[in-house]
C-alpha cells in the first residue's frame, strides 16, 4: 500500500479548513476503494509527501524544500494545489486525481 507522509503547516491563519480537507480526502479515497497509508510521523519513509499549507504563502513548502527531503511531494497552499488555483471544496477530488497520476493508481 503506498504511503503518504502528511505534514501540516503551523496553522496560524489558514484560509482553508485543513483537517476537513484531509477528512474529505480520506472519504473520497475510501469511496473509490483506494487504499493509502497516511502517516504524520516525520521519520517514516514514504512514497509521497502531502504538504498541507493553510494559505498560499506556504511556509511548510519553503521549509520542506530547504530540508532537502524526498523531492516527490504535493503541496496544498490554501486554495492552490501545486501551481493551480483550486476552490476549497474541490481540493480533495483534485488530490485524488493527483495521487492517481503520481502513484500510478489504476483510475476508477
Amino acid at each position, binding site marked *: 500500500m503506498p504511503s503518504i507522509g502528511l505534514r501540516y503547516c503551523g496553522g496560524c*491563519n*489558514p*484560509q482553508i*479548513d485543513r483537517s476537513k480537507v484531509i477528512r474529505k480526502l480520506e472519504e473520497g479515497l475510501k469511496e473509490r476503494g483506494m487504499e493509502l497509508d497516511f502517516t504524520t510521523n516525520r521519520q517514516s519513509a514514504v512514497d509521497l509527501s502531502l504538504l498541507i499549507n493553510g*494559505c*498560499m*504563502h*506556504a511556509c511548510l513548502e519553503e521549509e520542506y524544500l530547504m530540508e532537502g527531503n524526498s523531492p516527490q511531494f504535493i503541496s496544498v*497552499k490554501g486554495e*492552490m494545489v501545486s*501551481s*493551480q*488555483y483550486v476552490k476549497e471544496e474541490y481540493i480533495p477530488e483534485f488530490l485524488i486525481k493527483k495521487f492517481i497520476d503520481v502513484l500510478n493508481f489504476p483510475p476508477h
Partner: protein
Amino acid sequence: MMNGKEYIESLRGLNLEVYFFGQRIKSIVDEPMFQPHIHTAAMTYNLAHDPEHQEIMTATSHLTGERINRFTHIHQSIDDLVKKVRMMRLLGQKTGTCFQRCVGLDGLNAVYVTTYDIDQKHGTNYHERFKNYLLEVQKNDWMPSGAMTDARGDRSLRPSKQKYPDTYLHIKEKLEDGIIVSGMKAHITGAINSHEIITMPTRTMGEEDRDFALSFAIPADAKGVTYIFSRQTNDTRRLDGVLDGGNPKYGIVGGEAIIIFKDVFVPWERVFMAGEYEFTNELVETFAGYHRSNYGGCKVGLADVVIGGSNWIAEAHGIERASHIVDKLTEMIAMAETCWSCTLACSYEGYKTPSGAYHIHPLLANVTKLNITRMVYEWMRLAQDVAGGKIITLPSEKDLENPETMEILAECFAGKEGFPPRDIIKMLRLIENMSVGAGLPEAMHGAGSPAAQKIMIARRSGINKKMELAKIIAGIRKDKYFEDIIGKNETAHWDEVKKKIKGKKVQIY
C-alpha cells in the same frame, strides 16, 4: 541600464502630443512645468548606478540573467517583494514626492501573472507575447506608464451601456494583424514622460463588456494618442521663481494626465487580453494588490522627509525640547513605521503564483493602503502643527529679494542662531508643498479609494472562519483541544463543575 541623464535624453526621441494650459507643448523635456516630474522619474534611473543603492535598485532578469533596473523586473521571490518596497521608501526619501515608475512596474507584474492564467484556460499565447514585450522593456530600460483607470462616466451603468462609448477604453475593430482601440484613461501618473503605455481594464467586466476586457502596450507616441496634462496645487509657482514651489527639483505628486486613444492600432503581438472578461477581476486585483503595497513604502519615504523637516523647523524655532513637539514627532514616526510594518508584512507573506512570479499578500496590502489613506493626513496635520501658521502666510520669493522689503523680512523670519532665515523659509515651503497640496488626495485615491480597499478587505477577511473561532470559545461549538486538556467531554465537565458549586465543594467556599 540608463542613468538619469540618459533617461531624460531618451524622452527627446519621442514625439508626444501633449496639451497643457490651452496649448500644445512642443518639448516635454524643456517645459519648466514638467521638469520636476521628469527629474523625479530620472532618480529611478540614477540610483540604479549608485553602488550604495544597487542592491535594491537592480535585479537579475529571470529571462536573460542580466542585471536590470528593478522597475522592469518580475518578482521571483519573497526577497524581491521586500526589496521592491525598500526601493519605494528609498526613492520617497530621495525625492519627497511620487516617482511615478512603480505603476508600470506593477502593470508589468500583473499582466505577467494574468496572461499565464488566461493561457492555461483558453490555450491562447498571451503570456509568450508578453514575455517578448518584457524583454524589450528590460533591454531598453523603458518606463511604461500603467493606464488602468477609465473615465467611467455614469458609474451606475456598465461600460457597454455608457452614453459616450469612449468613456471606457475598448476594442472598436479586430483585424488580421491587430486591433483598433478607442477610449480614454484618466489621471495616469507619469504618462507624458514614459516611453510606453501598458493598459489594463479598470473594473471587472461581464460578458456584455467583452470588448472592454482589454490589455495592451503601445509606444507613448503611437498615432492617435494624445495627452492632456492635469493641474496641481500651486503649479504655476514654478514659473514665479525657485523658492515658492517648495520642492522645485522634484515637484508635487506624479504629474498626471488624461490619455485619449482615438482609433489607435495595436498589433496582436502587443495585445495581452482581448475579450477574456472572466480574467478582468484577476488583472485588476493583482495590479491593485501590488500597487497598494507600494504606498507603505513610498509614502513612508515621504514621511521620513517631512518628519526630518518638522524636527529641523522645531530646532530653528527653538522649541525642539518642548514636550508637545517631541510627542507630535514621535506620533508621526510611530504612524509612518506602522505603515512600513504593513508593507513589509504583505511582502513577507507573499506567495508564488502559477506563473512563477511572486505576489504580495492581498489582504495585508489593502490594509496597508487603507492605513495610508488615514495616516498620511494625520502625520501631515502634525507637520503643519509643528511648523506653525507661517506655512500658509509666507511672503513670496520676489519680496524676499526686493531691496525695499528684504531686510525687514530677514528679521521677521530669523530663528535660532545658526539657522539662516532663507533656509527657514525653504523648509517651511517644503512642508507646505508636502502637507497642503495634492499629495494628500493622492494618498487617498491613488491605487484606489478607501472603499475599494474595504471591499477587498471584506472579501478576503475569512469572516466565516472567525465566527467559527468565536463559537468554539463561546462554547457553542465543540472545543476538541479543551476536551483534550480536561480529559473528558465538555458538557460532562461543566455538569461536574456545576455540581461542585451547588454542593459547595469548591475551595473558595
